[in-house]
């Protein structure tokens, strides 16, 4: 009697076991799929057109100021800075400070903040150098190198922001 039950029950139990394993596998897969569905990594901030616009505005002002200085006779550059050009340097520094504040306020934006900080510090360093007694501080060569360095900071800011478009595949 006992052995008959064993013989008759074995295939049924095997089937039940398989069904249960299949059921659990499906449940585990469903849970895994649900879990994955909610997963997306975010390591950089979203693309911000306003940041690009601010960088464009700063670039225009910086390049125009250097263009005007280079167009001025070397002997008259110091006087130009003490006169009409001086306040423009201050205005550009304000634009850079505002840009830095806005970059700091964005989440996951350490690099954008670093670039804005570097740009401001370089600008302050150059402005200070222009007021020094060094006779070569406003030479064509110095101004040319300074403009090149500022362009590199600005280009880095543009590239960093445009790179964020890679995230969405735009």
């Amino acid at each position, binding site marked *: 009697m006992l052995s008959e039950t064993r013989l008759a029950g074995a295939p049924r139990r095997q089937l039940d076991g398989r069904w249960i394993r299949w059921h659990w596998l499906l449940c585990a897969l469903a849970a895994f*799929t649900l879990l994955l569905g909610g997963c997306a990594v975010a390591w950089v901030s979203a693309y911000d057109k306003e940041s690009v616009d601010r960088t464009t505005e700063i670039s225009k002002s910086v390049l125009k100021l250097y263009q005007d200085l280079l167009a001025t006779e070397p002997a008259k550059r110091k006087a130009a800075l003490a006169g009409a050009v001086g306040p423009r340097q201050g205005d550009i520094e304000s634009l850079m400070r505002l840009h830095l504040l806005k970059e700091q306020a964005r989440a996951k934006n350490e690099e954008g903040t670093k670039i804005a900080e570097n740009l401001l510090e370089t600008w302050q360093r150059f402005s200070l150098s222009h007021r020094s007694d*060094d006779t*070569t501080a406003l030479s064509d060569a*110095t101004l040319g190198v300074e403009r090149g360095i500022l362009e590199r900071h600005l280009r880095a*800011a543009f590239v960093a922001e445009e790179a964020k478009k890679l*995230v969405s595949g735009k």
Partner: protein
Amino acid sequence: MAFNFENIFKDAVKAGVAAAKPGGQAAEDWIRESAKANEGTLRSIADGVATRQISKETGSMLLRENGRALESEAAALSVIIKAAAQAAVNAFLNSLTSALSTALKLAL
């Protein structure tokens, strides 16, 4: 009904690699551009100092600022790499989720 996990993962990896490619190219281009710009700046400083258009003090200051520009360029490179990695990981996860959902729907 059997899931073909191997194909599902292969497709997901393919999607991830495809999403990472533009970022890889952008990083390569940026490294080249940055190296070229750095070389140009250093050359201009050296020429300026040699022709006495730039004093040693100003030259030293410009060299320090060149280092700061390199730091900004490295920060931009970091964004490119992070964005490319983010695109790749998310494409991989999306592909995997979508394939598993389809397989589950067929199984149920």
